[in-house]
């Protein structure tokens, strides 16, 4: 696929940096010494067994979860308890959830224009134009006036992606965007994501869709028990996993695919 970046990423500026990040839920350590550096335009796929802390990791990046130790720097801003910082970062970071989380009391169009109007203070008309152009991009402009409950899962997830894009984010986080979908709807969502990757968006995507990882990822990260166990370019990662745990995990999921 031509979307993959063939160039050297190391010269580009970092947009996300995690340094020695640790996080606990009560006594239970979910993240252990996470170091991660994401370059502008880089696409990262995060995989790993259930409960390994993948969601927690990406949710720390837009501070849906608070980390207790270490530094997280997003777009030059160090995350702290300062509300202004958090709001500034959330404007730059879009997130797509496993369960879509559209607002059921608002139409699709209203879902899309909510944040631009209230957070960015975009005039309503302009926000609606942006929203419609994004709905065209995810190929469901005709659903604009319906409510989320009237759409299929795949359509809802595409709306959720469009909703995140409405804020013109620098970074997109995806937390298992296709795992709540019926198999026949997975492709329509992945196609949208692949297209987005082709446009140079910085993406961190938790997913077990290895086809997607092969097609777009610059780097695949394997997490287990709160640690980054192994990371590599997709070809290397899938062909020659080095760590035993990675081998075991890949063995399990590849058998099922």
């Amino acid at each position: 696929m031509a979307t993959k970046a063939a160039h050297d990423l190391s010269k580009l500026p970092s947009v996300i940096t995690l340094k020695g990040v640790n996080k606990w839920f009560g006594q239970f350590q979910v993240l252990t010494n996470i170091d991660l550096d994401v370059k502008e335009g880089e696409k990262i796929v995060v995989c790993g067994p259930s409960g390994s802390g993948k969601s927690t990791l990406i949710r720390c990046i837009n501070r849906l979860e608070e980390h207790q130790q270490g530094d997280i720097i997003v777009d030059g801003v160090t995350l702290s308890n300062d509300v202004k910082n958090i709001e500034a970062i959330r404007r730059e970071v879009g997130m797509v959830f496993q369960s879509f989380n559209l607002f059921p009391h608002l139409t699709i169009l209203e879902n899309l224009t909510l944040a631009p109007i209230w957070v960015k203070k975009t005039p309503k008309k302009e926000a609606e134009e942006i929203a419609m152009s994004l709905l065209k991009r995810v190929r469901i402009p005709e659903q604009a006036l319906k409510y989320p409950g009237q759409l299929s899962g795949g359509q809802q997830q595409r709306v959720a992606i469009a909703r995140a894009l409405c804020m013109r984010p620098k970074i997109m986080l995806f937390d298992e965007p296709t795992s709540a979908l019926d198999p026949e709807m997975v492709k329509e969502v992945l196609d949208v994501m692949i297209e987005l990757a082709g446009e140079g968006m910085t993406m961190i995507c938790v997913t077990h869709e290895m086809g997607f990882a092969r097609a777009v990822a610059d780097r695949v990260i394997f997490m287990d028990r709160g640690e980054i166990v192994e990371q590599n370019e997709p070809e290397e990662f899938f062909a020659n996993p080095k760590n035993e745990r990675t081998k075991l995990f890949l063995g399990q999921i590849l058998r099922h695919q």
Partner: protein
Amino acid sequence: MTDVLPRPQVAPPVIDTGVVGWARKNLFSSWANGITSLVLMFALGWVLLWFIDWALLTATFTADSGAECRGHGACWALIHEKYRYIFFGSFPYQQHWRPLFAVITMLSMLLLSSDRRMWNTRLIWIWSIGSFITFLLMFGVLHFSITFFLVVALVAGGIGYAIRSVIAQKAELYAYYAAMGIGLVGLVLRMLGILPTFGVTIAPLSYVETGLWGGIPVTIILATYGLAFAFPYGVLLALGRRSHLPLIKGLCVGFIELIRGVPLISLLIMASVMLPLFLPSGTSIDKFLRAQVAVILFAGAYIAEIIRGGLQSLPKGQFEAADAMGLNYVQKTSLVVLPQALRVVIPPLINTFIGFFKDTSLVLIIGIFDFLNTANQALVDPKWAGFPGEVYLFAAFVYFCFCFSMSRYSKHLEVELNKGTRR
């Protein structure tokens, strides 16, 4: 393996159409069902006939005293004689048109606010003008002191700013700052005694003090303003109860539990007996106002708990999605959380409203005569003694009209608000 061969399709028998078909299907589908239906229909018919006979055929509609009614059916003459007192209490008899128009004003105000198309700034106008007319009619004389205007400026500026701060243009925000500033400075000056008392008095009619108010306007005023203030207050309490700030949370929990643990009667008595003890001597707060405040506090605690239920029913993902978009707390709450939470709690909320509409009768305990209590008073007249049934039936009928329309409105609102959001 079971038989999976396709069976020939047979059309259902066509007896369940028309009245006969319906009755055969629903009332006489079996012997037991048929007998039950017959017995119940017979009983119903008998009660209905008896009631028609009592309430219409042998009833007395006009009479000079209760004595003429005896030996006949219902004594509607009593209602005919007393209805003005039952409706308007001790309000000066010649002036009864005033509470009548006050009630009409309030009902139109409520009717207008029940239309969803009015749920914007128009509501402020509807309620300001409606309340002004209502209280002008009821009091006859309205005195607006400078303090009142200052408080209004402060509150209006504060609310306007809170709601619009994130979206309004600069000029609009400056207007809110100005209103708040004028209100605050004025109030401080007023308290320091620098600003003299003066006010505007509007006195087109003779003054009628709240002690003379009674009947249906009292019930409607207590319930309407009680709930109108208790609702936003209950929303704030419910939100406060979920706050992460321990002090706010503690205060809200403490308040809700305290109020819910006490009967309304004792709250009313406290408001009427104990509150004056705490106030500096010489100052007095109107009895009616005290009852109104007690109703607001009480209803607020109940409404808060209902709304909390709605808040809890929202999936966590809704909060997270709103957070991830960068909405701040006020935006998240007012645009995403409350609209959904309130939809869920419409039925229990209206249920509480209906309960409070009737519970306002407890204000009798501190000597205020609402509709049920004026009806009760009408029975005291020795000339008309002995017909409680008629009066209570009449009162019940009036209450039923109000409560039933609230119940229907709740149903309508539920359907209206869920339009399109369900598959």
